């Protein structure tokens, strides 16, 4: 199993480098694209296999006597890893068409693969240090994806992304220093290391800082500034994984800190939990508002990410089983949905070159499949049954009622619902104007601009996923239950 674990972690990176260096793949774009997809397919397989190897533990590398890179496969890790590799695969397929005429595509692929490695590593991380290590690597490796377009604003956005993330990571590092001081260890233990009911006030403060730090990646309120700048400038497949998956890396980190290091029991009811919840709620609302006011298509999606990821964080902040399940479910749902939306947006931009929402009248006529996918995805994000979004949000709402924190149990659900309405308000117009351009729409110029299969298939799959996660949510919920039971 250890071999498989190592393989699961490093396979994408190795494959990426191999692809980059193999001379025969230098020229042949098509072949290269296929190889990448295949490689990612294998990776998906590997991660699925790993699900049967739960509890595998190993030390990857000793950096210093006190600094060990140790791995530990558990439920949460498996869920995240499978999700991530799946998303990766689909976006890579999409990318083959989208990046078709890009001459730096080769370089892009390498980093694309390496980032996945870092992510998988983070999923299987067995200790805070390990997590931090892969987190940091992932940040750096994903920068080239952001600046890929090579435009000045792309570079500027890249630097902004870098600085925000590094700052967040530094807060995380600070946390590690103090955790190893307060808790004596930074190895993950389900339910948290600190079992004593009363935690030193320093520990609470540090925990809060760490949450904010890793919240950066998840675009949580005080540190969300980079996200709307960075995601849109990246090429569509990149932005799809950036906001669909990479934001979840932040979520994962927060999750690990709260439930596997400090312990929910320690934090429950403290100012940390309240503050954290407040921040998430602010973010949820603010994100939706900004998305609503935004006219650039991709940027609007970026803002929506800001708000949606904070749903997840809110779920984590509640620290009750139901909310926890909701959170994990929403991780899955949101990844799928946001991937779908970004791919759609990418397809639209790639085929029509329209980047403003207002220009999208009649898009449904030009690109029916894309628009349908978009519609389904948006419904999912709003939370209409029977999509995954509905299940997750339902769980979140119920969970938030159970927290028993005066005020939050009322405010929480309300804000969630309000933001859901806003979500409808900023996503559906595309569909509506797209299918019903109105009487003055000139049908004569109408041509089918639908993209090739490479573009449509992933979208369709994702759209299907949106629905399926809703219908067959139960098995997933059961899995999550076990995890939740172990840590709450």
């Amino acid at each position, binding site marked *: 199993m250890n071999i498989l674990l190592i393989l699961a972690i490093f396979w994408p990176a190795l494959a990426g480098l191999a692809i980059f260096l193999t001379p025969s793949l230098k020229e042949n774009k098509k072949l290269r694209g296929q190889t990448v997809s295949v490689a990612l397919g294998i990776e998906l397989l590997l991660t699925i296999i790993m699900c049967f190897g739960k509890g595998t533990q190993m030390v990857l*590398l000793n950096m*210093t*006597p006190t600094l060990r890179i140790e791995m530990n496969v558990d439920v949460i890790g498996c869920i995240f890893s499978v999700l991530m590799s799946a998303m990766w695969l689909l976006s890579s397929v999409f990318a083959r068409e989208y990046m078709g005429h890009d001459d730096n595509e080769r370089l892009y692929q390498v980093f694309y693969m390496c980032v996945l490695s870092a992510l998988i590593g983070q999923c299987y991380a067995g200790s805070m240090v390990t997590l931090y290590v892969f987190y940091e690597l992932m940040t750096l490796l994903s*920068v080239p994806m952001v*600046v890929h377009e090579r435009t000045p604003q792309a570079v500027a956005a890249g630097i902004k992304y870098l600085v925000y993330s590094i700052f967040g990571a530094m807060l995380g590092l600070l946390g590690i220093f103090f955790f190893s001081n307060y808790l004596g260890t930074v190895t993950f233990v389900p339910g948290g290391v600190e079992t004593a009911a009363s935690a030193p006030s320093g520990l609470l403060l540090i925990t809060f800082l760490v949450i904010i730090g890793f919240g950066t990646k998840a675009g949580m309120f005080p540190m969300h500034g980079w996200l709307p700048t960075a995601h849109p400038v990246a090429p569509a497949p990149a932005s799809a994984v950036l906001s669909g998956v990479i934001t979840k890396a932040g979520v994962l980190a927060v999750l690990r800190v709260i439930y596997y290091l400090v312990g929910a029991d320690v934090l429950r009811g403290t100012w940390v939990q309240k503050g954290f919840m407040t921040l998430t709620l602010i973010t949820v609302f603010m994100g939706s508002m900004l998305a609503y006011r935004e006219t650039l298509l991709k940027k609007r999606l970026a803002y929506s990410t800001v708000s949606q990821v904070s749903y997840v964080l809110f779920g984590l902040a509640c620290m009750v089983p139901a909310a926890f399940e909701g959170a994990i479910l929403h991780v899955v749902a949101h990844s799928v949905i946001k991937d779908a939306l970004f791919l759609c947006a990418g397809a639209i931009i790639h085929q029509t070159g329209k980047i403003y929402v207002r220009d999208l009248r009649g898009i449904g006529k030009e690109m029916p499949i894309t628009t349908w996918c978009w519609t389904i995805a948006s419904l999912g994000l709003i939370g209409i049954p029977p999509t995954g979004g509905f299940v997750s949000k339902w769980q979140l709402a119920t969970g938030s009622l159970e927290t028993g924190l005066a005020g939050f149990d009322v405010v929480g659900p309300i804000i969630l619902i309000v933001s859901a309405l806003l979500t409808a308000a900023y996503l559906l117009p595309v569909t509506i104007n797209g299918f019903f351009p109105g009487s003055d729409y000139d049908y004569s110029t109408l041509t089918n601009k639908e993209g090739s299969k490479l573009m449509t298939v992933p979208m369709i799959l994702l759209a299907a996923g949106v629905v399926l996660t809703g219908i067959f949510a139960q098995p997933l919920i059961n899995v999550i239950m076990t995890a939740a039971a172990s840590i709450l």
Partner: protein
Amino acid sequence: MLSLAVFLPIVCGLAMFACRGMTHRARQVLTEGVTLVTSLLVLFCLMNKRGVAYTPLYLLPKLPISFCIDGVGSVFAAIVAFLWPLATLYGFEYMEHEGGENHFFALYTMTYGVTLGIATAANVLTLYLFYEFLTLCTLPLVMHGTSKASVRAGYTYMMYSFFGAALAFVGVMLIIGFGDGGAFVMGGVMSEAAAEHPLMVQIGYLCAFLGFGVKAAVFPFHVWLPEASVAPTPVTALLHAVAVVKSGVFAIIRVTYFSFGAQVMRGTTAQAIALLLASATIVYGSTMAVKEHHFKRRLAYSTVSNLSYILLAACLMTQSGLTAALAHMLFHALIKITLFFCAGAVMVKTERTQIEDLRGLAKVMPFTCATYTIGAISLMGTPLLPGFVSKWLIGSAAIETGTTLGMIGVAALLISAVLTAIYLMGPAMSMYFRPLEGMEPTAKCDPGMRMKLPFAVLAAAIVLCGLFSDPIITLLAKLSAGVM
């Protein structure tokens, strides 16, 4: 043997002054040869002659000049011995456009010996002696250009150094006076003196700290370092990133742990002041580096802040602190010299000195830019690379002390880490992701073999140090525990 290692380069350097009429080839062979031989000698001593003391002469009765390689000294000696041949090799190609090679390499070689002298000094007087010589040897190197700017830089350097020397002299004298003779003993020689007149001892420590701190570019006295970056790059790279500045740091480590003694100084006001200064310098240096637009000056400022990382760790006055200090000393040496080499290569090959001019250089000097990037990401503390390891060690050592000052130190550390990312990654990104200006993309201006070789070696060394840091750190921990 050891004294030979110290004096061989000095003598050869002096000899080179004498014979001016050498051909390029002969000089280069001679210089490289001497350097390599010395490095081998050092290696030999490291292997076989640990803890054996040699006393070539007495300054006065009871005041010997003596050498001895002990644990901490061997680290510094090893660093120097590893880097010097590389830098010399690099220097050959670089200096061809600067001229005045004869006395340049003569002094360069002499400096090697002097630095070794510092590394292997067995008592504080010897240390001080070579410390002063270092100033004198490097002064002409700084002014090598003999332009107005370089003369001014030289003057600044000289004044600051001697200010430092004057302060250090006071400290050294107090050490010799109170700690009979001031031989280096792990744990210090001042314990009873500290009991008798604590104030004097603290003043002495501060004097020594600030005095040697001038070379280590501690905040109020850092000015000379960015100024001195007008010097030819081999000088800036080796001397102002490794030899000279590290000597300052090393001297502080020496007096802290081997003369005054960590036990004695821990918790005193002197330590507090030292720690605060170090923390201030860390942040200040990074901030200035961010503001700076001249490539080499930016790197110089980054040196300022990184040196204070080491000082911060050293002034924690715990064993883990010392370990961290040594680790960062080693890693920063490797990384910073690499960065400077890249800057130098860019300067020689394209006459570009400003950050803005680096745009798109990756197209024409891929090798150099790649090396630079490796250096940059490892200095900003990317996991799996050395910078992270040392930062980790420093941070945990600081927390371990559990003092407020430790916390402040950690805060400074992390703030500066962010700034580091800004000022190092900015150039790296513009190298790769900005269009090249004023140059044919086809023009290949990567430097020649004699420059590339050091690049390759250093880059490899950095990565290896990062991946296999465990044995290194364990060794350092042993050394800092006072094991030979």
